């Protein structure tokens, strides 16, 4: 029995490094650490920020901000423990493509790695250099990191905080949603889509939004002003910190007034980090009564973005996700000569994947690599 106790103690200790001298805290399979404040140079670079990646880490989420909705930030360079370039920005003199992808994000920058099983993470002394493109004006940002150190399961779960924002006109709120057949059908449909990825929905926390409902019931966004989206995602709504927060709104509207069906922070979102403009996702509920499966599809699609997946192929076919087992639909598939690739043109080339840029409820596949990424996100158990 003594050997068993020692074995269990050793296994537990491997996933928990409470009390190391960098101030990391370990709880529930996650280690969080403040990296400090950094002031960018006139080029917008923070310089190398050290990351002590634990040997047990299955994923790393570095997050930095706030730097304003009118400024974009991204990663400039990430070096691994061997000093090799894990990622370089395409404008970097040492640029070389890798299976790592980082977007250009306003106000707050979460950077998740790995986002491909072909480019995993190892323990050791890494560095991260952020680029905050503020036009020559130095910005001071706070950075922190989340290391996921518990075991990654092939049957993973993610908790959902579902927040209802001004959708009582549908008869939907935190009180009615647990018994609402259409809403539950949407959740079931999302879970069915994630099943191929080895991910299922864990606990669901039903929450009524108590902030400015009139402001956020329709979320207005534009290319140069995403503040309304960001301010909604910053709202402290409670629920599971280790999970995903999903705001169900009447609609998301573009600057010209067009309907956007779903938006996630990132990718990736700031998983397990609350109070940032990248701390959740938003789903339009307009289709719930007519087509709950459609809403479930959007929940699955946007949730996957939050957890680190990109579109298998973008609208023009000129960019694809960094995964090896997802089909690619490129510009050469554009048979009608217009500016975008539709589901018919991409038949057999990923239009049946949940992460196609324009999926429909027949887009039900997820690949092994997609599941690999989803299951090791810090928000997932």
């Amino acid at each position, binding site marked *: 029995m003594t050997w068993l106790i020692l074995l269990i103690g050793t296994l537990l200790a491997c996933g928990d490094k409470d009390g190391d001298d960098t101030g990391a805290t370990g709880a529930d399979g996650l280690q969080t650490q403040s990296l400090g404040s950094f002031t960018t140079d006139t*080029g*917008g670079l923070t310089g190398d920020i050290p990351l002590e990646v634990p040997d047990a880490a299955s994923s790393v989420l570095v997050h930095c901000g706030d730097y304003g909705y009118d400024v*974009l*930030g*991204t990663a400039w360079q990430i070096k691994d423990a061997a000093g090799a370039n894990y990622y370089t920005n395409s*404008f970097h*003199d040492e640029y070389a493509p890798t299976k790592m992808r980082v*977007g*250009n994000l306003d106000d707050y920058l979460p950077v998740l790695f790995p986002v491909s099983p072909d480019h995993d993470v190892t323990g050791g002394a890494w560095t991260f250099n952020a*680029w905050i*493109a503020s*036009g020559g004006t130095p910005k001071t940002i706070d950075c922190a990191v989340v290391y996921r150190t518990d075991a990654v399961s092939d049957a993973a779960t993610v908790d959902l905080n579902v927040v209802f924002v*001004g959708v009582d*006109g549908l008869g939907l709120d935190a009180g009615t949603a647990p018994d609402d057949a259409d809403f539950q059908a949407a959740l079931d449909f999302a879970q069915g889509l994630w099943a191929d990825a080895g991910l299922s929905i864990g606990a669901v926390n039903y929450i009524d939004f108590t902030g400015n409902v*009139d*402001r956020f*019931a*329709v979320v*207005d*966004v534009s*290319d140069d002003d*995403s503040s309304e*989206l960001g301010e909604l995602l910053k709202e402290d709504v409670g629920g599971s910190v280790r999970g995903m927060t999903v705001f169900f709104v*009447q*609609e998301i*509207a*573009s*600057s*010209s*007034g*067009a*309907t*956007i*069906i*779903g*938006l996630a*922070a*990132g*990718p990736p979102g700031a998983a397990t980090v609350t109070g940032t403009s990248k701390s959740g996702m938003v789903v339009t509920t*307009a*289709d719930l009564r*007519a087509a709950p499966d459609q809403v479930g599809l*959007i929940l699955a*699609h946007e949730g996957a*973005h939050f957890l680190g997946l*990109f*579109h298998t192929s*973008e*609208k023009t076919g000129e*960019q694809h996700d960094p995964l090896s087992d997802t089909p690619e639909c490129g510009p050469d598939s554009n048979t*009608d000569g*217009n*500016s*975008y690739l*539709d*589901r*018919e043109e991409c038949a057999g080339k990923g239009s049946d994947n949940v992460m196609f*840029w*324009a*999926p429909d409820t027949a887009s039900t596949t997820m690949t092994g690599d997609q599941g690999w990424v989803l299951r090791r996100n810090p928000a997932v158990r």
Partner: protein
Amino acid sequence: MRRALPALAHTALAHTALALAVALPLALAATSPALAGDLRAPVLAALAGVEDVPTAAELQAIGAGVEGELMEIAQDNSLVPTTRARAVHALGWFPSEGSQALLRSTLTGGDTLLARKAAYALANGWGDASVPLLQPALAASDVQLRIATVRALDGVGSEAARSALGQRLTLEANAEVAATIRKALAD
């Protein structure tokens, strides 16, 4: 030597891949539309993105008859509301007597989602001429329709639009609508 860093552009994903409405000249030539249904598939494909919304150019490129197809889609109860909403919005890029009549009817119809889209479409398609059409919607009972109408008029930006907003501000009791008007007038 490190070269100077260029400006960053939004990643073409999520909320950053947004199409801007292109105001079409009112002299847009109207040709005989194809029979409704002939262009159903390509128009629906253009309306199909999750985060991406169709652009005026993408819809125009489908060819003659898109306006008629959009009008059919806008009124097709067998389609999901968001598809119909995108069709209503897109009619603003095909301004004609027919599309205006449908939009005016939709603006005062009972579907608040479609009414909001109609407000934007009228503003996008008819500019200053839309102001008298939109002004009554500033007094709609639905708060979100009032906000959408304010934003639509803000997009118009003309003296008449600003005057309409200013007049409404004196009457508006809802704090968020009033704040939206003030922001529009401050632009």
